[in-house]
């Protein structure tokens, strides 16, 4: 059965989120299928925590989190430190993410390189491309892509490629990201939503 676009792909209802104890909430938020949102707000407000709660890396202590049953979630974490040495290639990374490399030349050029020998910007671009195309064989309406500060570490050389990857996501794919980089958000064509608007008293 195909998902109903009118239904949200996720819904927080008076949810309190945290790791060992609740530190964010109560939060009520609905994300429609196919929407492209950026959660904004100052550092430490809980944007990354919200994304981690969606992948099960953080807990919902009170209230509810409802995910559409068909939702397939991929996450680009804020940072991914690389071990030294780390003998993985770009192809290995894409296989592990269940992703097909995009046509983009700059990403293709990284596929045979070792991950521990890429620059910070190249590594971020490769991870972003893999997160955006993870399980891309599923219908777009089933896919929820979470990007935590994707503009981090991007130098001028790869920034444009990163924006191009985000804007070329198939229609119907839901995107939820965090970023402090207003220019990046504007270029990526996402709606800005301050997280504080979804946190309510008591």
């Amino acid at each position, binding site marked *: 059965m195909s998902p109903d676009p009118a239904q949200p792909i996720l819904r927080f209802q008076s949810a309190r989120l945290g790791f060992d104890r609740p530190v964010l909430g109560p939060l009520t938020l609905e994300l429609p299928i196919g929407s492209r949102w950026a959660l904004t707000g100052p550092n430490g407000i809980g944007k990354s925590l919200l994304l981690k709660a969606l992948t099960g890396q953080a807990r919902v202590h009170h209230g509810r989190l409802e995910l559409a049953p068909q939702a397939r979630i991929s996450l*680009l974490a804020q940072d991914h430190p690389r071990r030294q040495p780390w*003998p993985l290639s770009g192809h290995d990374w894409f296989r592990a993410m269940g992703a097909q490399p995009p046509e983009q030349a700059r990403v293709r050029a990284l596929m045979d390189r070792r991950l521990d020998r890429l620059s910070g910007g190249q590594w971020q671009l490769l991870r972003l491309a893999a997160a955006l195309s*993870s399980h891309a064989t599923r219908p777009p309406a089933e*896919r929820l892509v979470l990007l935590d500060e994707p503009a981090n570490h991007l130098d001028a050389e790869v920034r444009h490629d990163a924006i191009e990857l985000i804007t070329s996501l198939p229609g119907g794919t839901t995107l939820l990201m965090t970023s402090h980089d207003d220019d990046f958000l504007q270029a990526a064509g996402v709606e800005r939503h301050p997280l504080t608007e979804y946190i309510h008293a008591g």
Partner: protein
Amino acid sequence: MLGDLLLMPFVAGLLITGVLGLAGAGLFLRGSVWQALALGQWAAVGGVLASVLHWPVLLVALILGTGVMALLQRSTDRERLPLGVFLAGLAAVTLLAANFSQASLAAAAWAEGQLYFAGPNELWAVAMLAVASILLAPGLYRVWRHAQLAPDVPATRPPTAWLRLTEIGWLVAAVVLGSMVLGVPAALATLLLPAWGAAYLAHNLRGLFLWTQGIALAGFLVAWGLSLSLDQPFAPVLVLVNAALASGARLAASGYRERNR
């Protein structure tokens, strides 16, 4: 060099080297080298304890090894806890050896290795583990590849809990049997050093597994030839050969990169 008496130890040693090489690449990818140290030492505790109680060595070593692995898996501490468990195992072997004469002999055998005395039982056990390793390799590979992703999350399903448990059980069997056949230091040297050297030479994951096997098997063959021709114990020779090969691999990779800058 391969008389009838030595054929069985040679084949058993070659097979367990291949298994330990695979396990070593997996442990490298999991970042769990300290766990191997603790696991190998507690396999030795099991072997020494079995000699005191006159129980089957492999069974007791596997039970203690599984217990240690279960304990280590419950903690996120990947360094201090495994090191503490290793030291506790070292103390346990020393105390057993100090109080029971048969334990003293068994402790020496586990420390020095007893490859030349490997018989049909050891060969069968190693051969079965080698066959199981070949059958499980695709699943193990999937678990280790997936372990590289965190904190990123793929949209595909992660390996099942059953597959992850199988991987842990297989690792325990590999380390315990490897320690029993080669001795703890030689088994750990085969687990840790070839994968470390290979990590500098490989271009990708597949290369890591191939280079690890190549270095591990070359190390075994060189150590076998040297120890027999120089009339030296096998285990320490293997440790030194593997250390030399891994360091050589690292230096060769660094030199290659410098030249291609």
